[in-house]
């Protein structure tokens, strides 16, 4: 678990990233997290897993492959989710000024290490 935490710290250390976490894609529960104060990890986990689940059903209906990266962009920030295998999601919450490209690369790296 320490290794996982260290890996998540790498993501959350990126400029503008408010936190990173591993989430069970099956039930939306937090597996591990590295979050700034004020970020509701349980809510992020539940919402991210639900969003990715619904999106996966939509892409399946469209005959597309399952999402490898999901990026919800909002006025004040973003939520990024990267499936690591079928059971785990790497999720990050960022502010509007985040280095999204770097966050994306680190998250893909974390996901590869877990899959």
């Amino acid at each position, binding site marked *: 678990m320490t290794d996982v935490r260290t890996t998540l710290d790498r993501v959350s250390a990126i400029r503008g990233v408010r936190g990173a976490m591993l989430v069970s894609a*099956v*039930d*939306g*529960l937090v597996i591990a997290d590295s979050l700034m104060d004020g*970020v*509701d990890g*349980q*809510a*992020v*986990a*539940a*919402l*991210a897993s*639900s*969003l990715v689940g*619904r*999106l996966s*059903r*939509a*892409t399946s*209906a*469209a*005959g*597309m*492959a*399952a*999402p*490898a*990266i*999901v*990026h*919800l*962009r*909002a*006025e*004040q*920030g*973003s*939520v990024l989710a990267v499936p690591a295998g079928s059971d785990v999601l790497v999720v990050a*919450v960022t502010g509007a000024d985040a280095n999204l490209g770097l966050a994306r690369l680190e998250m893909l790296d974390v996901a590869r290490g877990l899959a």
Partner: protein
Amino acid sequence: MADDIRAMTAELATDPGSRVFLELGEALRRRGQPEVALKVALAGTARHPALADAHDLLARVQSDLGDGEAAFDAWMDALQTDPSHLGAHKGLGFLYYRAGDLPRALRHLEMAREQDDSPGLAQGIARVREALEREQASAVAEPSAAELAGVPFSLDETEDDAGRSALGAQRSAHAEPPSRRAAEDDLFNGFDGARDGLLLLDHNGLRLGGGIRNADNRDVSDAVAAHLAGVSREAVRTARLLDLGAWQSVVAECGAGNLHLSAPTDETVLLTTRDASVPAGRLSVIAERAGAAARRWLERVS
């Protein structure tokens, strides 16, 4: 804070896996604290995703907060766990009735009636039946307002995709006046992918125009639209709960293809898909232009 709520909060803090959150959430909403109840319910559903009562609690709180769509999703989640859940059938019956979809309201209330013989529920069913009979009588003469407007909740997750797709197509045929059908041809006129790669839907998952085809060249627009209504609701909810402001887009990179979801207006959702050779930035530009076209089209047909 009342003693009972304090005691339950303490119990939950000691044992986060306890089901006392159900009682606590209900007590909070009854005391007029729906925002606090929402946190309790969200944590409860996250910890007990297979517990239908947890989704039922979440739905009732969402309903109290005036978020009928979120309540709808939560009650559907409850039924996926327990297809005979009394609270979910009552809640969905209420939502369908409020939305004007009387046949579905009646179906859910009658399923609730199998477990609840209270006079209040019986009276409710009688009222829905009367309203339905009036609507059916007027439909003989002309299409009802509900048919012309499209029913507010098209997504019934107990139906399979094929059934949902067929239902969507059947509704489209009844719901769209001829002038609107003709106008649809103009929606994405001139855009690459006007018939395959751009899809405009309303927030209830009904296709407004454009289309999506799968690898077998089969039109899958209705099934995709039905799923995407849930995605956009989830995006709204996620952005709101994380204080991120209004959501602007959802992009999914899916191997050989990419998907871009945006909201040209508060009431509509636009799906743009392209193969992976189109860079994400360009996909956003295409989606933005298609969104502007959708807004112009909506102004013309409304």
